[in-house]
C-alpha cells in the first residue's frame, strides 16, 4: 500500500488520502463496499453520489469517527483514526452543530485548543477564520442566535482553522444561499491555490463541476466511476459551424445537419478532428467554428447510475 501511495503522488510524498477496499457494515447492511481511493495532495477531490450512497460513512471512516469493518486506509500518511493525522485535518460535518451557549469566536478558540494550537495564537486564528467565511463582526454573538447559514459558515471556519493540510467538507453548502455558495467556491479555490487538499463531499453536481479536479462517484456503497473531471466529462463528437458544403457531402463524412450552418459529427474521435477540418476545407467549406462536445456532470452522473 505504501508503494502505491508513493506512486500515486509521483514518489515524493504520500497521497492525502489512500484507501484500499475500505468497508463498513452495519449488521447485514453494507454502508460502504470496498472503497479504494487515491486523493493526490493539493487536489480538490469531489466525492459525489445520491442520498444514502455512503458518502458520509466514507468521510467518517477517513476521520476515524467510525471504524471500518474491512479494508485499510491512510490519511496524510498515517493510519485512519490516528490523532496525529487529525491535527492536520479540518472537518465540516454534514450535520453541523456547535455549542450554542458559546460565541462563534469561543467555538473557534475551543477547537484551536483541541487541535493543539498554542494559547497565544488562538484568538488571532479564530478572527482570521471568521473573516475568511464572512463572519467578521459576528464572533461575539452566541451561536444559538446564529441563522442556519451562519452556523454552516461557522462550521466552515472551524474546518479552516489553523491552515490544515486536508480540509474535509461534507455537504458544505446545504444551508447556504447562492451568495454563500459562491463564497464557498471562492474559499475552495483559494485553498487549492495554497496547496491545501480539499475533499468535497456533495450531491450538488454544479458545485463539484465548478471546483473539483477529480471525482469519485459512489452509489449504494460502491464506487461506480472515478477519475479526472476533464476526462470523465469528455464526450465523443464535434459540432462544426460550416458553410459551402452540401448535406450529402456532410453525410458522407458521417455528419448530419443539426441547424443551418451547423453540422454534427457525433461519432468522431478527438484525434480525427484535424482530418475532418482538412476534408471540409478541401470540399470548399468555410469553417466558422469547431466545438468538441463535453457532457455535463449531471448527464454523466445519470449515465453512471443507469449503467449500474
Amino acid at each position: 500500500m505504501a508503494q502505491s501511495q508513493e506512486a500515486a503522488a509521483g514518489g515524493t510524498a504520500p497521497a492525502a488520502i489512500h484507501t484500499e477496499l475500505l468497508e463498513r457494515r452495519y449488521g447485514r447492511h453494507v454502508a460502504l463496499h470496498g472503497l479504494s481511493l487515491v486523493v493526490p495532495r493539493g487536489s480538490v477531490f469531489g466525492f459525489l453520489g445520491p442520498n444514502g450512497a455512503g458518502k458520509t460513512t466514507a468521510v467518517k471512516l477517513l476521520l476515524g469517527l467510525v471504524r471500518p469493518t474491512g479494508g485499510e486506509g491512510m490519511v496524510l500518511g498515517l493510519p485512519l483514526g490516528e490523532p496525529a493525522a487529525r491535527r492536520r485535518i479540518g472537518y465540516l460535518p454534514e450535520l453541523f452543530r456547535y455549542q450554542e451557549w458559546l460565541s462563534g469566536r469561543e467555538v473557534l478558540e475551543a477547537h484551536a485548543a483541541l487541535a493543539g494550537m498554542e494559547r497565544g495564537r488562538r484568538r488571532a486564528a479564530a478572527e482570521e477564520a471568521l473573516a475568511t467565511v464572512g463572519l467578521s463582526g459576528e464572533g461575539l454573538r452566541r451561536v444559538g442566535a446564529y441563522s442556519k447559514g451562519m452556523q454552516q459558515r461557522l462550521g466552515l471556519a472551524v474546518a479552516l482553522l489553523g491552515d490544515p493540510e486536508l480540509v474535509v467538507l461534507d455537504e458544505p453548502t446545504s444551508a447556504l444561499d447562492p451568495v454563500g455558495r459562491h463564497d464557498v467556491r471562492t474559499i475552495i479555490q483559494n485553498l487549492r491555490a495554497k496547496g491545501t487538499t480539499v475533499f468535497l463531499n456533495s450531491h450538488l453536481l454544479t458545485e463539484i463541476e465548478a471546483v473539483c479536479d477529480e471525482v469519485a462517484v459512489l452509489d449504494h456503497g460502491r464506487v461506480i466511476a472515478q477519475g479526472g473531471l476533464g476526462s470523465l466529462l469528455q464526450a465523443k463528437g464535434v459540432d462544426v459551424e460550416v458553410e459551402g458544403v452540401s448535406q450529402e457531402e456532410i453525410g458522407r463524412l458521417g455528419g448530419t445537419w443539426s441547424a443551418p450552418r451547423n453540422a454534427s459529427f457525433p461519432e468522431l474521435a478527438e484525434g480525427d478532428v484535424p482530418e475532418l477540418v482538412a476534408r471540409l476545407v478541401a470540399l470548399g467549406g468555410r469553417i466558422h467554428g469547431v466545438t468538441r462536445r463535453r457532457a455535463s456532470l449531471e448527464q454523466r452522473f445519470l449515465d453512471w447510475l443507469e449503467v449500474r
Partner: protein
Amino acid sequence: MLEICRLTVVESLRRRLTLALFAATLLLVGLTGWAFSEIGRLSSLQGVERLMQFSVLLLFLMLLFTGMLALTAVFTAAAAVAGELESGVAAAILARPLRRGAYLFGKWLGLAAVVGGFALLAGAGELLIVSRVAAFAPPQPVAALALITAQALLMMTLSLALATLLSAVTSAIISTVAFFLVWMLGTVDLMGVALKYPTLMTVGEIGKILLPTNALWQAAEYYLEPGSLVAAAQGLGLGGNPFLAIGPQPPAVLIWAGVWGGIVLALGIWGVVRRQI
C-alpha cells in the same frame, strides 16, 4: 482533556445550571434553618430526647438531600454526554486530535466539579445552619460530607457511562431506578439485621456490591449521629433502623465504592470508544 473539562463547566454556567443549583442551595439551607428553628421553639423535649429528635430530623433531611443530589447528578451527566453525542456537537470535537477516553474523562472532571461543588456547598450550608440555629453539630461533618459527595459522584459516573451508549432520558431513568432500588435493598438489609434474618441481609449485601451508593449513605449517617446516641443504641442492641446507624461501614465497603466508580468510568470510556459517531 482539560479543555473538555473547562467547556463542561462553562456550559453549566451558561445554561444557568450552576445558578439553579445555587438557588436550590439557598432554598434548602433556608428551609432547613427554618425547620430546626421552629422545632427547637415548639418542642418541649430536653436532654437525650431532644438530641435524638434533632439527630433524626437531620438524618431525614440529609437523606432527602442525597436523593436530590443523585437526581441532579444523574440528569446533568446524562444530558451533558448523550446530548452532545446525539446532537452532532461531539462529531466536530472528536474529529480533533483528542482520544475518546480523554474526552469522556474531561467531561467527568467538569461534571464532578459542578456536582461535587454543589454537594459540598449545599451540604456544608445545611450542617452550618443546623449548628447555628439548633446548636446541634454532627461529630464528623467533613467525613459525612465527603461520603455524601462521593455518593453523588458515583451516581454521576453511572449516568455518564450509560449515556455513552443510550439516550439522555434512558440513561437518567435507568440510573434513577437503580439508585432507589438499591435504597430499597438497603432497607431490606436493615430489616434483615433487625429480624436477624440472613437471607434479607444477603440481598442487602448484593445491593451494596451492585451499586454502593446506599452503603456510602449509611457510612455518612454514622458520622452525622452524636456519639452519645450511638453508644446508647449500641448498649441497647438497637440496629436495623434507617435513621440510626450503630457502627461505621467497614473499610472494604468504601474501597469497593472507589473501585466501583473506577470500573464504571472505564466501562463508559469503552462505550464511547466503541460508539460510531
